[in-house]
């Protein structure tokens, strides 16, 4: 099993969970270091999304340990608390608040007081305004700031959601299939954006698009049937006979 390192940002050990007898995760162990960009691949049903559900508190594991920043036990906390601790999550299907403007989407995501009264009496400060403008520029949505999110294209929604994650200022970002449905140009730009983001925080990307993962050029973990099959560089993993048999070969 993996050694527990006090510097480790995210630490999963022997995590298992089953739904109606189906073992979605089977004694999964997995470590993310601070500042690391990690890609996760694997066939459908390998447990990629379940793993994210466990890290973000949506699902409780049947057994195993999940620790954040060394000693914060994530299995005992709910989604809101885990988000406030600094774990951001992007869904597979882009989910932005369609009835809010692009600006309001980012304002809501901003890492500020999230209680009832903090939001009731919230006023936009100069600092918050600058931060939102900065993010708008990063995700290239400055021109659309006053438009409703419902009017954005699919790719723009994906980018807005990434912008919202940035506004959350997480230490760990979990990104589920960020380039699904994007054009090749958008995909290449997203790779650049994610690499940029990973300079200041850890990012875990789940993706099917092997070209995109090659673009990222990072350590790859291949999951299958709820546990880690292989881990290493993209060339190492894609030459592993088990990976070829389980995933690439099919």
């Amino acid at each position, binding site marked *: 099993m993996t050694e527990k390192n006090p510097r480790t940002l995210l630490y999963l050990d022997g995590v298992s969970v089953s739904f109606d007898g189906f073992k979605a995760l089977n004694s999964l162990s997995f470590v993310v270091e601070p500042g690391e960009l990690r890609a996760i691949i694997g066939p459908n049903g390998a447990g990629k999304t379940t793993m994210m559900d466990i890290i973000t508190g949506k699902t409780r594991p049947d057994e195993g340990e999940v620790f954040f920043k060394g000693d914060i036990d994530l299995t005992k906390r709910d*989604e*809101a608390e885990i988000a406030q601790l600094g774990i951001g999550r992007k869904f597979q299907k882009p989910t932005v608040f369609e009835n809010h403007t692009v600006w309001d989407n980012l*304002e809501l995501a901003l890492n500020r007081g*999230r209680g009832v009264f903090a939001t009731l009496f*919230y006023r936009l400060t100069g600092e918050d305004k600058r931060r939102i403008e900065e993010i708008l520029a990063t995700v290239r949505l400055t021109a659309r700031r006053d438009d409703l999110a419902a009017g954005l294209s699919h790719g723009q929604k994906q980018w807005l959601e990434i912008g919202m994650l940035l506004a959350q200022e997480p230490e760990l970002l979990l990104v589920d299939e960020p380039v699904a449905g994007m054009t090749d140009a958008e995909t290449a730009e997203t790779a650049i954006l994610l690499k940029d983001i990973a300079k200041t925080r850890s990012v875990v990307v789940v993706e099917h698009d092997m070209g995109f993962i090659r673009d990222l050029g990072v350590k790859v973990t291949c999951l299958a049937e709820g546990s880690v099959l292989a881990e290493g560089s993209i060339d190492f993993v894609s030459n592993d006979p088990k990976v070829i048999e389980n995933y690439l070969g099919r």
Partner: protein
Amino acid sequence: MITSFLVKSLDRTIAVAVAILLLLAVIVPALNLLTAPDHPLHVPTYMVSLFGKYLTYALLALALDLVWGFCGILSLGHAAFFALGGYAMGMYLMRQIGARGSYGNPLLPDFMVFLNWKELPWFWYGFDMFWFAALMVILVPGLVAFVFGWFAFRSRVNGVYLSIITQAMTYALLLAFFRNDMGFGGNNGLTDFKDILGFNIQADGTRAALFAASALALAGSLVVTSGIVGSKFGKVLVALRDAESRTRFLGYRVEHMKLFAFTVSAMMAGIAGALYVPQVGIINPGEFAPANSIEVVIWTAVGGRGTLIGPIVGAILVNGGKSIFTAAFPEFWLFALGGLFVLVTLFLPKGVVGTAQHHLARRRQARAAARKEDEQTDLEDAKPMAAE
């Protein structure tokens, strides 16, 4: 902090609506009290009470809009909070009767004497004081909503399941208040009121004052809800209505947000009920009937949910229609109400006010676009002139 909250709440339509309500609060009582009965502008007292009642319905619909329109909680039990506020006011009015009841008991209301009770139940203590009753008008519905919401939202009961348990809640209260042992007058409820704050409840002046109070309460609640909806908290409400789990993953405690909105809404419904009871002169368990809560949903839908003004317009329109319709063709009213709901859902999903606002916004956009084009052609026209 509070002032910025209030300033933000006063967007233009809301400001106009508040101004109209304040004007009504002055003009209607004046036309009732200061003009002779044969004057063409005279407003008869029965009309004052009727419209006063509509205003309390409008306040109830506004309260529902806060949770349904902005939070996505379709409460089918909001009339329960209205009735609880009404009962709190009714208990105060009962104790004002004093020795003037049929049995002449100075302490016990008539129904307790009739049931052979010897002393006042503990929960009737304090209701002889207006301030205490007024506090209970807000606290009791607020507390019931808080406890109910605490369990429902924490267990993440959503959508149609939540609607069903709100309906069950009001039905349970209906059955409870029907029982004589509950100590709230059972089947007959509370009635035969004499005075409110020392004024005869039947007098024209008191009726006019109650109308004015209803208009002021509605105006005040409109300012408060508009402030809530316009704040960042309001944006979070809309966000969790549309994408609840996304909101959770941004770090918001969705259950706390819903609980706050639900409790505030129930308190507003309680105030509406408390103003309703002295104007109609009775409160009985029938007010808890599930159908009442469903009617509130129809008013809100007809007016336009999520617009704040819509529910007010809807409540007045539908109830005005009901008053006319039930007088002319009493047996057809329920068909008309059902038909109205179907038609609005099919053809006016945004309701009357929502549809009007939508068209206005489209026209304004088109006009702005046309103006931009004009400016561009002007510029192009100007260019060759400059070149010459």
